[in-house]
């Protein structure tokens, strides 16, 4: 086997120029996949962290009922002993903080015009601890000190539709947890641009205390948990599960990935683009290698005839060609991985920026991540492609008529 491998390896260097060209082609394919895949990985990473830090958090805790039935009254599937739950969660490892939230609906009015809003009530101190801050288009964030006027942030669409700006007032109307109608006056302190028009047309944010007063309930919809690193999500979720089961209310833990629908859509789209690119590279390597390997086979016709004459089984001839192609693939993959990483480092240090993505104003930094699984996957792809490309030439070589092959010039 060793000598057979040696023969295959040495055969690769019989025509150095052709081998070099094949290595460059295979290596180029791997390099291309690593650069594109590395950039996509950076985009996924950026989108993931943005999604989490925009307020989704790493974990969210709900009552189990929240997912099992529709609310009859506001917050009737909410967490009632949320301070105890938050305290329990906060003592766990890797937890940076816990932020209570209330999601509610209602009407807002400027005295002349009314509109529906989708409200989110937050604890500004807890939100700041976790680094969650709304994208302000004007004004400021909610005050962290309790007392004074009831403050509110509204979406840019709401501000436009109600013709209000920071400093103006609005009246909020909502149904309480008992089913009665209640209202409070709020002062607008800031206008938020979420990046999504539908969201901006309905967005309202007030403090948790104000919402609980409006809704006449001490409950919260959910608790948002922030961790020290996203990579710890699974570990913390596994740790928290049993501890939450010991609390009076039945609670459910959701990971950020379960709640990040937009992230999953984007990831799915770009993954498909990457798979498509991979298929192109696969067939590019396959088709060009078939031609190269057929040329190699024709050039070695007499040698193959000699080996067959000496009683070499035809299966050995097939194995030799497949082994040579596989070795070529492995070498090409090594060239590609080295080239891809080197180019990635150079591009990362070049300060290259891409135009701002939709919904943002800042140019996007071009960064390539070095992803080991991508290197392994791309390498396997080209090795398999070359091995497959060798099958036709290998079968042809193995089926040569010995007498004709020996007479081949």
């Amino acid at each position, binding site marked *: 086997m060793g*000598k057979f491998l040696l023969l295959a390896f040495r055969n690769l260097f019989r025509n150095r120029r052709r081998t070099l060209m094949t290595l460059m082609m295979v290596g180029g394919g791997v390099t291309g996949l690593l650069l594109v895949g590395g950039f996509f990985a950076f985009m996924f990473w950026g989108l993931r962290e943005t999604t989490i830090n925009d307020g989704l958090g790493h974990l969210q805790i709900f009552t189990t009922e929240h997912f099992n039935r529709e609310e009859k009254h506001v917050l009737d599937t909410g967490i009632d002993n949320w301070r105890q739950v938050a305290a329990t969660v906060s003592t766990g490892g890797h937890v940076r903080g816990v932020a209570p939230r209330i999601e509610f609906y209602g009407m807002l009015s400027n005295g002349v015009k009314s509109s529906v809003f989708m409200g989110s009530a937050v604890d500004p101190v807890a939100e700041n601890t976790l680094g969650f801050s709304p994208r302000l288009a004007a004004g400021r964030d909610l005050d962290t000190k309790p007392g004074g006027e009831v403050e509110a942030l509204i979406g840019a669409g709401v501000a436009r539709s109600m013709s209000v700006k920071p400093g103006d007032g609005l009246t909020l109307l909502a149904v309480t947890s008992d089913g009665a109608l209640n209202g409070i006056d709020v002062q607008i302190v800031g206008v938020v641009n979420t990046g999504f028009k539908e969201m901006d047309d309905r967005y309202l944010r007030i403090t948790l205390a104000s919402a609980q007063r409006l809704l006449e309930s001490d409950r919260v919809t959910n608790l948002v948990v922030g961790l020290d690193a996203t990579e710890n999500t699974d570990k913390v979720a596994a740790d928290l599960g049993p501890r939450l089961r010991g609390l009076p209310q039945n609670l459910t833990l959701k990971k950020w990935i379960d709640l990040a629908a937009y992230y999953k859509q984007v990831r799915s789209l770009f993954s498909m683009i990457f798979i498509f690119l991979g298929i192109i590279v696969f067939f590019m390597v396959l088709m060009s290698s078939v031609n190269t390997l057929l040329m190699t086979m024709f050039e070695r016709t007499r040698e193959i005839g000699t080996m067959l004459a000496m009683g070499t089984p035809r299966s*050995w001839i097939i194995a030799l060609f497949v082994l040579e192609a596989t070795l070529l693939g492995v070498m090409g993959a090594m060239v590609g991985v080295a080239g891809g990483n080197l180019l990635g480092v150079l591009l990362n240090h070049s300060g290259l920026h891409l135009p701002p993505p939709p919904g943002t104003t800042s140019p996007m930094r071009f960064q390539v991540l070095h992803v080991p699984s991508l290197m392994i996957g791309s390498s396997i792809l080209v090795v398999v492609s070359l091995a497959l490309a060798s099958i036709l030439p290998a079968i042809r070589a193995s089926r040569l008529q010995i007498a004709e092959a020996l007479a081949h010039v």
Partner: protein
Amino acid sequence: MDALVNVEAVSRRFPLDHSYVSALDHASFRVEAGDFLAIAGPSGSGKSTLLNLIGCIDKPTGGRILVEEVDTSRLKPASMTALRREKIGFVFQTFNLIPVFTAAENVEFPLLVQGVSARERRTRVSEALESVGLSSRAHHRPDLLSGGERQRIAVARAIVHRPALVLADEPTANLDTHNATQLIDLMRGLNQRLGLTFIFSTHDARLLEHTPRIIRLCDGQVISDSSTEGASHGQVLAARV
């Protein structure tokens, strides 16, 4: 005594357009173990075709060939491969060494195919190289060897697995007279020393001086066999002159 090779009314025709061309026509002769036999004749007389048929590289369209009493025309491809691997050694006109292997690795190849152990291979390769006088060139690649040396390596490769029969198709065609004579002397020496049976084809009359038995072919037919004629070596030479 059973013959090592028994060629019985063997014919080989090749299709050509809507007709055929006869390369060998009812050739018959026997080769005994230990023979040193030359198949002589001009180009196109059917020498290579005959060697290919004896070497199980090709199948006859008529007649049959028995190697050690086995009718090779009835063998399946795998059995023919096994027969070539175990019983026959080949020497080719153009040496046909594997260029990326050293001389020793080339000689080792038939043993690799037979699945001989590494230790046994080393011993046999060393013996084979010594028997052709090229132990000192063991680690040279073919492109660093002269034509004569390459063909001696090819002979070492043909005998390393101790075959019953060595077939050499025009082994001297690419050698000068000195190297050609040396090669035939080498093969004759191996024949006498090790009892190996050699059948080689040639159209070089000078080489036949070293050959005890000569079969002459012309237009695919055996026109003479010095063994059946009972002719002495001198008589054969005289007849040729």
